[in-house]
């Protein structure tokens, strides 16, 4: 592959990823807009009778995802084993999120129990699906049969995407769990 063709492909990927992330941003912005409307119409927030939200658990899960994002950034300079680390941390994040949902359901904060439970479950579950998509992308570029030429380019794009889901998580955490 000639250097011009590879640089053209990199730019194509960057433009495509920018459009894709713009679309994803609109998706989460619309979900947050729905949350804002629900919250603005509530008499008090959290609604009276809502059990306390386990912020610490949500925060520690978030740290796992942030670590996964950093590991993937490191993979760009320090070899694909860091991508594998990122994959592991991301998978752990999903497991811990599933555990958190179980705990919330048991503690009457699950979906269908009240506005706060609804909002957190809908936003975090949909976010988790997007994290899962990112992990699939990382797994694909780590396949032994994957083209070695394309790997740096794909890694760049995966990093951009993982940075995006980390940023979305931070926004969800601050908007729903803290505020």
């Amino acid at each position, binding site marked *: 592959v000639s250097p*011009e*063709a590879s640089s*053209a492909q990199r*730019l*194509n990927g960057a*433009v*495509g990823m920018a*459009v*894709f992330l*713009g*679309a*994803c941003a*609109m*998706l*989460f912005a*619309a*979900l947050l*807009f*729905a949350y804002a*409307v*629900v919250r603005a*119409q*509530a*008499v008090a*927030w959290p*609604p009276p009778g809502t059990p306390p939200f386990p912020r610490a658990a949500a925060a520690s899960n978030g740290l796992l995802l942030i670590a996964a994002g950093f590991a993937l950034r490191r993979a760009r300079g320090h070899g694909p084993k860091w991508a594998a680390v990122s994959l592991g941390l991301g998978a752990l994040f999903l497991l811990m999120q599933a555990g958190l949902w179980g705990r919330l359901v048991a503690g009457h904060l699950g*979906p*269908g129990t*009240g*506005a706060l439970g*609804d909002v957190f*479950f*809908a936003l975090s*579950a*949909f976010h988790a699906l997007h994290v899962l998509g990112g992990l699939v992308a990382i797994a694909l570029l780590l396949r032994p049969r994957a083209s070695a030429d394309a790997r740096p380019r794909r890694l760049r794009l995966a990093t951009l995407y993982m940075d995006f889901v980390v940023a979305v998580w931070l926004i969800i955490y601050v908007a729903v769990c803290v505020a």
Partner: protein
Amino acid sequence: VTAPDAPPHPAAPPQTPTPSPSPSPSWLGRVFSTDHKVIGKQFLFLGLAFLAVGGVMAMLIRWQLARPGQPVPLVGRLLFPGAGGVISPAAYTSLFTMHGTIMIFFAVTPILIGGFGNFCVPLLIGTRDMAFPRLNMLSFWTMAAATATLTASFFVPLGAAASGWTAYATLSTAIGAPGAGQTMWTVAIYFNGVSTVMGAINYITTVVRLRAPGMSWFRLPLTVWGFFLTSILNALFVPVIAAAMVLLFFDRIFGTQFFIAGSTIRAGGDPILYQHMFWLFGHPEVYILILPAWGIVSDLLSFFARKPAFGYRVTVWSLIGVVVLSCVVYGHHMFTTGMSPLLGESFMVLTMIISVPTSLLFLNWLGTLWRGAARMRTPMLFCVGLVFTFGIGGLTGLYLADIVADQYLHDTYFVVGHFHLIMAAALLLASFAAVYFWFPKMFGRMMSEGLGKLHFWPTFLALNVVFGGQLLIGWAGMQRRLYDPSAYEFLAHLLPWNVWISRAAYVLGAAQLVFVLNFFVSLRWGKPAPANPWEVGTLEWTLPSPPPHHNFDVIPTVVRGPHELGSPDALARGKDWLGQDEVLP
């Protein structure tokens, strides 16, 4: 229009990837093709098939409105065996819901954006394929999966969705629609959106990055502008309806209450929130659908009037103006939800402002036609028909943009007539114009001109009677979505009107059989098409019909705009057009 001797603009770095290998002849390789031309045809066939399904549904709806409660002739006992061939109120509600859903999301979107977008964009900008061919293939198969889900929903207990194509909460929540049909509708719309966004990513990247050398932004055919701008709106606003579908899905499956009003016991959501999310997407969607049609018609009017498009730059800036304004007008769908009068007034003014760029566009069409040496071939007939119906459709929109008039007209057949003149009539006419125009390039054969004209005249006349009649009965006060309007004393006198509208609708339906005949007969036995049957200058017509797998052996260098018709340079060469890449000695 760029002067023919202007130096080529440095548009994009030259893209000369090696031609991809020819498609594998295997059955699997053809079905799961990454060639934009094959994917475009796949989208076209999918869309045309569902256009037929949605059209049959329209005939059934018209039967019920003209002969309320009488058994449907011929197919009634087959379609509605439980009711002795009569359309029941529940079946009727489901019919108009699925008619709208199928026409908008599964017929017009695949035909224009999926079909012609895919086929035209790489050919017209001078490249060998989309920027992401595999994503393109995935886009089609995601659409196919969404279509399968929607089709399957007809066969579940309680039947397909019945909450209107807008699926307003609470009609669409588990309270209003307990059956699985509505859930499957929600999933199908979500994946339809995923497919559309994949397409948008491809179209935007392809137009930004892969234009042939010299193909500057203001040398792009207006067709490409239409698809490009539509893709921007798709990328921005389809995710908003996707978010609404996610929340609706959670409401239905997990018992959340985003779209169910709160009670004193628990804080909840708001059914009006659904309407905001739906129309935040829904109004741009109107322009998402019409922008490709505008682009195609702007090009074709010039090609067949044998004149450069009048005010090319003004047209482009008008299209961009419409795109920007379309983001901030959606509230005009919600004047009757009790929104603040101040907010309503802002939406009214913004909506009326959108008629300024639209009028410029319209005037440019007239300017293109003015004193042209028109060749009234079939594609041109459909384009001129569009100019007429879009004119009426656009003007009636001004009534609905006015808050006071809308209080009366909201949810009447006036609205139905208005949006059908644009979403059905204008889009259908543009789609047919595109089929007749690009069929030779797609399939290598000409369609029959005689059958084309036989298709056009009844279609054009009947659709104006149908949708014009709907404007009139709406003005007279007939609401939409009523099972049997004649049951109400104040609407009973409109029954004869409905009978005549329905008769025109049957003519409209029957006229489409001429198209089906023409399409399949031409596909098999049509006259072999030359490379450039219409004698126009855009890049796809420099290729053989149909083009080879890799499109261009050598990526062309573009030296002029797309509408160089009737220029003295051309006339000196004994023809009246110049190719976009034609270098004059």
